[in-house]
């Protein structure tokens, strides 16, 4: 009988296809703690770090800045209810939603926190459930306005994911509750006549900002009460030290690749263009932000020495790179044309790129069972 013996290693190994590069110290941008990687760091690691430091974390920061601005705008509007302030408020909601879509492809770590109650779902329930909740949330808002419950912080913190987040704010800001009128005069009148509606608006905005802060602080200062940022835990392979049932043990490049792949699978198979931002009407701007984030992930930040496309090129996958670039142009065009059918088809192609060409070209295993099943 032929028997083979293989040795085990307790060290976590990231498979790469390129030469290793020694470095002395890596420190994160905009983080409260420095990190050092004293073992050999590959070019793939550097590309990942560039993505985290110059794309993901700034996107998380931008989203939190926008939610903060939205909260301020809500307070200002309620202090002085006017058409001008309503315009500002509505425009700020749009800015916030676009910032969300810039961050949304990177749905891992602080975006999730808990698999059972993922943070992102309290911002964007549709991303979790894939069902249009517009009518449901309208009904909830109607009921809440008619009730006499105390609309304090706790009220908003304990609400289900479906009844909070960007959609709840969109409904509150872009239409009246009683007749679903989008006329600004009607909206202003309703806010003027019903002070409870302002309580609802400010409470929703404050809760959204709190969730955004959770994401941002998780990336930059403290993840899962560890006292260490997720960024530092991730690039130093220390996540598994946490006693965290939510940590699945994937290396950084896998988390990034799988997150983006899942996102394009979502775009290809769900009715995002018709179900999202139905009242604000700016879903295409949001999707454009997502594509821009994807492009930057692959091309690297300005001045970056390594990026995914360069790594693929160096590995002899120039044609794959050319194809993926073409696919990105295609999907950008569908956004310009606001063509839902073509957009979903283009998203499906990119889903495939993140499932096959990119991980294969980088020699990253996404998992045997993951792709295959039984």
């Amino acid at each position, binding site marked *: 009988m032929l028997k*083979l013996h*293989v040795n*085990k290693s307790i*060290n976590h190994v990231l498979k790469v296809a390129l030469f290793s590069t020694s470095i002395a110290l890596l420190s994160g941008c905009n983080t409260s703690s420095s990190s050092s990687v004293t073992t050999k760091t590959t070019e793939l690691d550097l590309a990942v770090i560039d993505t985290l430091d110059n794309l993901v974390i700034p996107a998380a920061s931008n989203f939190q800045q926008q939610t903060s601005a939205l909260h301020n705008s809500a307070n200002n509007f309620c202090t002085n209810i006017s058409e001008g302030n309503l315009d500002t408020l509505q425009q700020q909601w749009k800015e916030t939603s676009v910032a969300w879509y810039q961050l949304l492809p990177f749905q891992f770590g602080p975006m999730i926190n808990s698999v059972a109650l993922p943070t992102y779902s309290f911002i964007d329930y549709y991303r*979790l*459930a894939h*069902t249009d909740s517009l009518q449901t949330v309208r009904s909830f808002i109607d009921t809440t306005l008619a009730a006499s419950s105390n609309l304090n912080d706790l009220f908003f913190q304990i609400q289900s994911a479906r009844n909070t987040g960007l959609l709840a704010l969109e409904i509150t800001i872009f239409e009246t509750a009683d007749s679903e009128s989008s006329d600004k005069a009607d909206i202003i009148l309703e806010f003027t006549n019903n002070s409870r509606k302002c309580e609802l608006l400010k409470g929703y905005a404050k809760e959204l900002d709190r969730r955004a802060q959770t994401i941002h602080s998780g990336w930059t200062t403290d993840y899962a009460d560890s006292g260490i940022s997720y960024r530092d835990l991730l690039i130093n392979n220390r996540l598994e030290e946490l006693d965290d049932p939510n940590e699945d*043990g994937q290396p950084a490049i896998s988390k990034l690749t799988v997150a983006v792949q899942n996102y394009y699978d979502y775009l290809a198979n769900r009715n995002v263009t018709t179900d999202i931002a139905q009242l604000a009407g700016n879903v295409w701007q949001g999707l454009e932000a997502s594509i821009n984030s994807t492009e930057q992930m692959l091309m690297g930040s300005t001045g970056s020495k390594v990026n995914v496309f360069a790594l693929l090129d160096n590995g002899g996958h120039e044609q794959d790179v050319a194809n993926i670039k073409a696919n990105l142009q295609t999907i950008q065009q569908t956004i310009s044309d606001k063509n839902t059918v073509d957009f979903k088809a283009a998203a499906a192609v990119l889903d495939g790129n993140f499932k096959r060409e990119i991980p294969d070209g980088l020699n990253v295993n996404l*998992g045997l*069972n993951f792709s295959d099943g039984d």
Partner: protein
Amino acid sequence: MPAAANALLGFNWPQDTDKSAEQELWISAQGRDKDSYSISWAGNDRDKTEQVLSGFRGHGLSQNPTRPEQVIMFARRPGTIGLSINVLGDEAPQPFHSPPGHHMHGHGCFSADGQFFYSAESDYRTGEGKIIVRRSDNLQQVSEFSSHGIGPHEIALMPDGKTLAIANGGLLTHPDQGRKVLNLDSMRSTLSYVDIQNGELITELTVEEEKASIRHLDVASNGHVALAIQVQRKGMQHGELVPLAALHKPGKDQLESLHAPEALTLKLNDYMGSVRLHAEKNLAAFTSPKGDLAMFWDTRDLSLQGYHAFHDVCGLTLTQDNKHFVLSNSAGKLRFIDSTSLKENKSKRLYFPETSWDNHMLTLSLPS
């Protein structure tokens, strides 16, 4: 039904015996290509795995209860070959093949006396699910009977030693069309109990969702049967979430679904891979490689007790002393979940970087 169900109890299940003096190994199909496909096993006191190359991608395995050194691996659907090995290395591996016009579904089990083993197969000419019976010593087919459904997947002997629990997945496939589902519109999945002596159907149960395929099961010494389910979402007319785990208890005429919070159920991506019951702890454990999750339910009140995230987890078994659930993934990692606290015992982690554990894992108990 109740009388038949109660008759399923009473057999002295091998797991009830004291195994503390025995050697413990964890065995699984593994590999990523034809050159590396193999049966591989590891033990906690070893720093390496051992392998027997198979040349084909295997799936489920079964250990002979009366000759524990014999392990059989079945080809992954729609393969037609299986392999019998002696983990002590005293015999050369022996292949066996599906009968003409048949293919395997990846699972099988031994008879209580170890003289025969049963494999889940299909006659792809007719689409009928079959249980092929072979002798354990020479691997020759001696008989067959219907699985009483389409696409039998995992099968297991009930504690009475006379009844086979069959997860009929309900999915019709043909080797010429690979793994494509050919009967999405009409699929019907069942948990079927079949008398192994006469091949007759004792009873069958179904889940509520028509497009849910019962694929894997485990049987405990108390007669409980836990089911792991995969949903054919493309065939569904609605977008509702479907429970992916279920339980059948003796005396009950219905399956009981095991529910989880919405976010967890969504993360499972309509796919549960392996299932293992812990009768002593009243736990049913499941893994989802597409959800990167292991989940644990209490079998008494059907409440979710915990979960554990682990990338591409699928293999699931219990340690010999029943103190830990063992999880495996395709990166070669093993994790050990304390069966009392349901927290990981990180000090026991093992990592075999050259090994890609496949879907299912089995604990072997060998005499020391």
